[in-house]
């Protein structure tokens, strides 16, 4: 019973971090129908940037964070402006492929500037673990969960009530109609990439201050695709519900079948969901016509 509670709580906490990364994916998908397969690489590069700011240039913590957010804004803007905008209206294959190219480029860039392959950020959150009933949990993971919950609420409110958020939803629905209503579609795409990069940067700082900065971050990115698929691509709620589910499945699978199975579970979930419920828990099923 104790291990049960222990596993569920740590699963939920880890899952919330996946959910945070998946939020960045859903943001872009929701507004521009582009699937960002460079998710993990965005996390990777912003973590390394934070490392560069805090550990190499020795900036104070608050300034380093500010620089990272500024970097994320710039990165998102550049990506949209240089790589995605020329491809508006191109077939879906090109849009997938361009984010793959982006993934390759960003990975190369990080290896170019930070070839050491492993880095550590200073610990942001208190180290001692907390006891919840019979379970103990790292405090850092809880903080991660809280931050992703806050971000989720902010983003949901933004998409629901803010003018820009409403315009973003409308753009995803019908670009032409939105343009006819004089909504600047290109600016909306820019904004969504900028937001996604900020979310990725926050996620990156969270994860890499808990563990190390290395190629594992990219794999975390791949794992959070399972969150996106299970929750449904266009749903923030889906992310925040599916994240803990994936996390729980991972920790339980890991404790039942051995830790090597743990890496497999997100991908198995992807296959199962796509075979039986392809649009996820909260995704909209698209009905196609000729």
């Amino acid at each position, binding site marked *: 019973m104790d291990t049960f509670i222990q596993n569920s709580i740590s699963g939920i906490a880890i899952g919330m971090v996946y959910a945070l990364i998946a939020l960045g994916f859903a943001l872009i*998908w929701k507004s521009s129908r582009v*699937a960002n*397969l460079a998710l993990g690489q965005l996390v990777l590069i912003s973590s390394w940037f934070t490392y560069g700011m805090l550990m190499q240039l020795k900036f104070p913590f608050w300034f380093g964070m500010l620089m990272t957010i500024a970097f994320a804004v710039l990165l998102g803007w550049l990506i949209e402006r240089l*790589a995605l905008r*020329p*491809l508006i209206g*191109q077939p*879906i*294959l*090109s849009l*997938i*492929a*361009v984010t*793959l*190219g*982006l*993934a*390759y*480029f*960003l*990975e*190369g*860039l*990080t*290896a*170019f*500037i*930070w*070839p*050491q392959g492993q880095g550590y950020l200073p610990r942001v959150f208190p180290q001692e673990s907390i006891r919840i009933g019979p379970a103990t949990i790292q405090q850092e993971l809880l903080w991660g969960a809280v931050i992703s919950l806050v971000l989720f609420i902010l983003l949901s409110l933004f998409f629901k009530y803010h003018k820009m958020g409403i315009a973003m939803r409308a753009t995803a629905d019908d670009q032409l109609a939105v343009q006819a209503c004089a909504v600047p579609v290109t600016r909306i795409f820019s904004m969504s990439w900028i937001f996604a990069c900020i979310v990725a940067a926050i996620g990156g700082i969270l994860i890499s201050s808990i563990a190390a900065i290395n190629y594992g971050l990219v794999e975390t990115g*791949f794992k959070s*695709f*399972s969150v*996106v*698929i299970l929750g449904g*691509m266009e749903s923030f709620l889906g992310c925040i519900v599916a994240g803990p589910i994936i996390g729980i499945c991972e920790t339980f699978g890991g404790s039942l079948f051995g830790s*090597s199975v743990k*890496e*497999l579970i997100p*991908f*198995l979930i*992807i*296959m199962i969901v*796509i*075979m039986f419920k*392809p649009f996820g828990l909260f995704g909209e099923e698209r009905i*196609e*016509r*000729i």
Partner: protein
Amino acid sequence: MSLPCGTRNYSYNTDMAIIRTKTQWVLFSLFLLALFTLPFYLPSSWFDTVNSIGIIVIAVVGLNILMGYCGQLSLGQAGFMAVGAFTTAIFSQSLQMPFLLSLVCSGLSAGLIGLIFGIPSLRVKGFYLAISTIAAQFIIIWVLKNWTDVTHGANGLDVLQASIGNFVFDSEARQYYLIFSIASLSVLFATNLARGRIGRAFIAVRDNDLAAEVMGINVFNYKLLGFFLGCFFAGLAGSLYAQYKGHISYEDFTFQQSILYIGMLIVGGLGSSLGPILGTVLIESLQKGLTYWVAPWLEQTVTFLPTGFSSGLNLMVFGLAFILILIFEPRGLAHLWSLFKGSYRLWPFSY
């Protein structure tokens, strides 16, 4: 297809022929001659590059059938190659199967695994399918990593070099002939496949699968066939890779390679028989050039960056090439080549 001025076809066969004029025949024969005499004057340090180009061409041709013609994205081509490679390793090593038989078995086993992962294509497409093939890649590699009784995990397996009867392909030049015969056959097969009924059906499915279904094409069968054929070629490539390298482990088949193959295909041109070849040759030679010449030179001249920075160079250059091609020439090098041919044919009269 446009023909040179004055060339007319009097029968259906001449109209459908791949090679139609005398000039084309001459050029084609010269090309074949050059291809099959290459080992005589190729410097020995180049064999490695050329042979791996041959192997990768097969995998990319398979990917072209699946992605270029059938329109189903596969981000797991390296995983399917791994299936082929391990099948060859196991069959030729522990079951003592002759090489050609294990080659075919590798293709079939990779194709069957491909069929399983192709099933979702019935219900989903685009990004969903892309993500499910990412899952395929990771699941396959995970199985190869953890099924240690058969695959020996990280230690990997030793593979005998290919042999037919008593003839062992034990030198680089012999390997060259083996690899390039199979690669040529694959290219020929893929070209003819694309021109026939199956290829037409693939193209219909790619362009609009709902419309294709209304026209009476069994979309699911053709999508699965696309997956089977694409993965079959990946299996062949994996099998050749295994016997060429002599030792394989799951670490040889990374997700990055899967992306690289897609990159090669897109740089070369989707949905053309020339594309995979052009893309593979260009990207592979670029890769060798970068690792052998540019990276050491950069390491010496640029001193303000930390040591070892050039490891990211390849990735960066390809990512960039990939994005630029998509933006400026989405139909790839093959399209540029056909534009060149077209303008050359009319030269010096532009219209």
